[in-house]
């Protein structure tokens, strides 16, 4: 029960307090304008190079934006607390670490999910991309799973935040890697082999692939394997991120770097 | 001609709250004050936090436009001749922000020299002079982020003097400094006045105003409640005596009983670590000690002493309006 409270209450308040992303002045430009223009940018490059259909880019970029809050928000949670000197306070409480950090990720996942959905709908409308009605429910599922797996990566990023100061920089770099590697705009087959191999192990890759098939009319059963893979990768990153967090926490306690803001 | 004149100077702030339904609240920060600072004078603006000192200063240095009334610096209006005023006034604010921390103190001074339009030749001479004056010589090539609070504050002073202004305004320059640093800074301020500059200083430290200022204006809740030389202000309470009582945990109601006690003109309490220091003012010659102790009931009492009033007592009496 206590764990549950830390999970929900702690998660929500820290999310609010730490970066106030709930103000429309940040939400609208960061989560509505930016994803939309990223879709348009790559869709137009796609039209120039005659590489793929508009739908390819709408799905890829919209789903990538599920990852953005997950990377930035998780990293900021740690970085922000360090900035406000509350990190040692939080870490000295006996609260269980897993509900503490995972709890912080729930609003983040929800955020990523909404952003992704908005980008998908408006991007499709603007570019005249048709997505079958029957695909909507499965797409929602895939977006949620993708947001979850990206949060795993966000957790790793947050753990890094215990060591390096600039989580905003690491978040941006991770975003860039996902952009290039995960088949967001470049089909995996067009990437060098070593890159597509790495992509197989990253969150987002399978989610995007599944979503593209769904939007193309495939049933949920056909993409079950891809969704499962995304979910599995997500779990691995969550567990890995959690382990890394504990490791970094112990490490930084030993080296006394927690206070350093 | 006065170096600084304020005429019915008034400034209000509007605060808005709420996002959907906006509510506005008007706050009177400065409520129409008049004062003059003569050329070459060191004038103190004294008052508690939130009394309107900084707002007044910001209107004088052209950072705020008065809501009504007027102010002039060397005869130039602060609203209509803002640039002329800026050329003639040096503004030093307290606190450790206000410099480019990633760069050296010297870089900061060079940059601001440009902004003040100081010719390169003059800069070469003046910057070392100022570094010497504020005691930063030898540390000027270090990054400001490594400076102590006192060093940053002294850098502010140097910055405010780059263009050799005839009028210098210092807003709580010693705030947050250790005692040694604060004393050094006061010496520097005294030197400025000796060099013939008109200095306007705000502070809430009494001894600072007492030691430095030729004249003082006491400001409380946006109004000037008294003005004069430190000696003249002290005379407000010259016919009084001050009883200091240390009490360990004042019981509820004790303060009210003391205040209502016959003969008492003003009471204030200073919270110290484990003890409250009660300061009671009463007319000279009145023996109140026993009567006051009676008011306190059976609380444990430490030191009890009667003494001559200081400028601080005059200030307390003025600010609390008794």
């Amino acid at each position, binding site marked *: 029960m206590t764990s549950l409270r830390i999970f929900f209450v702690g998660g929500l308040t820290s999310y609010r307090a730490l970066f106030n992303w709930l*103000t429309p*002045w*940040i939400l609208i*430009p*960061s989560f509505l*304008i*930016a994803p939309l*223009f*990223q879709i348009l*940018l*790559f869709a*137009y*490059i*796609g*039209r*120039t*190079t005659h*590489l793929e259909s508009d739908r390819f880019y709408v799905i890829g970029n919209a789903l990538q934006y599920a990852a953005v809050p997950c990377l930035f928000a998780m990293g900021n949670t740690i970085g922000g607390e360090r900035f406000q000197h509350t990190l040692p306070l939080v870490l000295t409480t006996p609260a269980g670490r897993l509900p503490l950090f995972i709890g912080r990720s729930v609003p983040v996942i929800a955020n990523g999910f909404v952003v992704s959905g908005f980008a998908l709908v408006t991007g499709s409308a603007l570019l005249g991309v048709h997505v079958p009605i029957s695909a909507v429910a499965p797409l929602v599922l895939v977006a949620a799973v993708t947001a979850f797996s990206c949060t795993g990566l966000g957790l790793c990023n947050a753990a890094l935040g215990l060591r390096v100061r*600039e989580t905003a*920089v690491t978040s*941006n*770099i991770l*975003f*860039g*890697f996902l*952009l*290039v590697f995960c088949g*967001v*705009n*470049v089909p995996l087959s*067009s990437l060098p082999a070593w890159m597509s191999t790495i992509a197989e192990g990253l969150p987002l890759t399978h989610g995007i692939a599944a979503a593209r098939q769904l939007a193309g009319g495939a049933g949920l059963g056909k993409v079950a394997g891809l969704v499962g893979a995304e979910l599995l990768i997500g779990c691995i990153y969550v567990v890995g991120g959690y382990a890394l967090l504990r490791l970094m926490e112990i490490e930084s306690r030993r080296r006394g770097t927690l206070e350093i803001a | 001609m006065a170096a600084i004149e304020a005429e019915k100077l008034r400034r209000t*702030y*509007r605060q808005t709250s709420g996002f959907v339904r906006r509510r506005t609240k008007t706050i009177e920060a400065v409520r129409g004050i008049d004062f003059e600072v003569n050329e070459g004078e060191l004038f103190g603006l004294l008052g508690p936090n939130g009394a309107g000192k900084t707002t007044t200063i*910001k209107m004088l*240095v*052209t*950072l*705020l*436009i008065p809501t009504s009334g007027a102010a002039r610096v060397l005869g130039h209006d602060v609203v209509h001749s803002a*640039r002329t005023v*800026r*050329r003639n006034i040096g*503004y030093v*604010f307290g606190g450790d*922000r*206000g*410099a*480019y*921390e*990633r*760069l050296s103190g010297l*870089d900061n001074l*060079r*940059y*601001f020299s*440009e*902004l*003040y*339009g100081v010719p390169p030749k003059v800069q070469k001479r003046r910057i070392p002079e100022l570094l010497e004056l504020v005691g930063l010589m030898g540390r000027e090539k270090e990054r400001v982020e490594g400076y102590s609070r006192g060093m940053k504050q002294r850098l502010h002073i140097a*910055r405010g003097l780059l263009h050799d202004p005839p009028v210098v305004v210092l807003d709580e320059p010693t705030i947050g400094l250790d005692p040694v640093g604060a004393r050094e800074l006061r010496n520097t301020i005294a030197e400025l006045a000796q060099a013939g500059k008109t200095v306007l200083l705000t502070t809430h430290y009494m001894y600072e105003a007492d030691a430095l200022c030729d004249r003082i204006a006491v400001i409380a809740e946006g109004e000037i409640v008294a003005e004069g030389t430190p000696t003249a202000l002290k005379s407000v309470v010259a016919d009084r005596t001050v009883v200091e009582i240390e009490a360990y945990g004042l019981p509820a109601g004790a303060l009210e009983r003391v205040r209502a006690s016959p003969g008492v003109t003003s009471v204030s309490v200073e919270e110290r670590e484990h003890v409250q220091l009660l300061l009671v003012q009463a007319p000279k010659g009145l023996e109140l000690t026993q009567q006051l102790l009676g008011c306190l009931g059976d609380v444990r009492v430490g030191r009890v002493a009667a003494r001559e009033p200081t400028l601080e007592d005059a200030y307390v009496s003025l600010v609390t309006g008794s």
Partner: protein
Amino acid sequence: MKALRLVAIGWLFQMKMLSRSSFDGLLGILWPLFFATTAFFMFRTSHDSRALLYAALGSSVMGIWSSTSVAASSALQRERWYGTLEAIVGTPAHFSLVLIPITLAMSTVGIYSMAATLLWGRFLFGIGVHIVHPLLFVIAVPTTVLAIGLLGFLLSVTVVRYRTAWALGNALEYPVWLVCGFLVPLSLFPDWVRPISWALAPTWGVRAIRQAALGGAPLWPVAACIGLAALYGIAGTLLVDTVLRSARRTATLSLT
């Protein structure tokens, strides 16, 4: 003359300050590279070396805009944060002459990113950069930097009341890349977009750089760039006075 000196010294001062934050600078170079890499992979499928060079030149200008849009939109906010805004406003210098060097320095730093993108394209994607008019290229690049810096100046003044302008600056990154034709020809857009593209100096900057490198008449776009830069400068300067006066009236200079 005095104004020119103030801008030049201010620019040097800002460059010095920017050079002290290498970690941010690293991101400034890496960030456009991710997009350039994606674009290179996309253009590579066309097997047209000219298309790749077109993409390389266009994406090299992306970094100039990126470093300007984010930093310029929050330039005033940053001065507030340092506590230096009041100190600057309290000086007799005209405020636009203080602000222009700040945004100009930011666009200048973008040249690093430009070089990095061209080298990246050269060594990882084998995009040979052969420049037809080297002299005009050398003119086109600083002109573009100047025009983008002044666009940043206008932006910084326009968004001064916007507390979280960095978010807006971030969001403006892609639209300009897109609308100014960094990577796609303007002819692909609906007609109503075209006047917007023409009013934005980066459109002409990237065109000048391309024509200088690939062959063409880059002098016209250079002239358009300079003309627009002057317009931004004048508009921004006029706006600065209004903005500052209102800030002194509403007491918003010192707020963080």
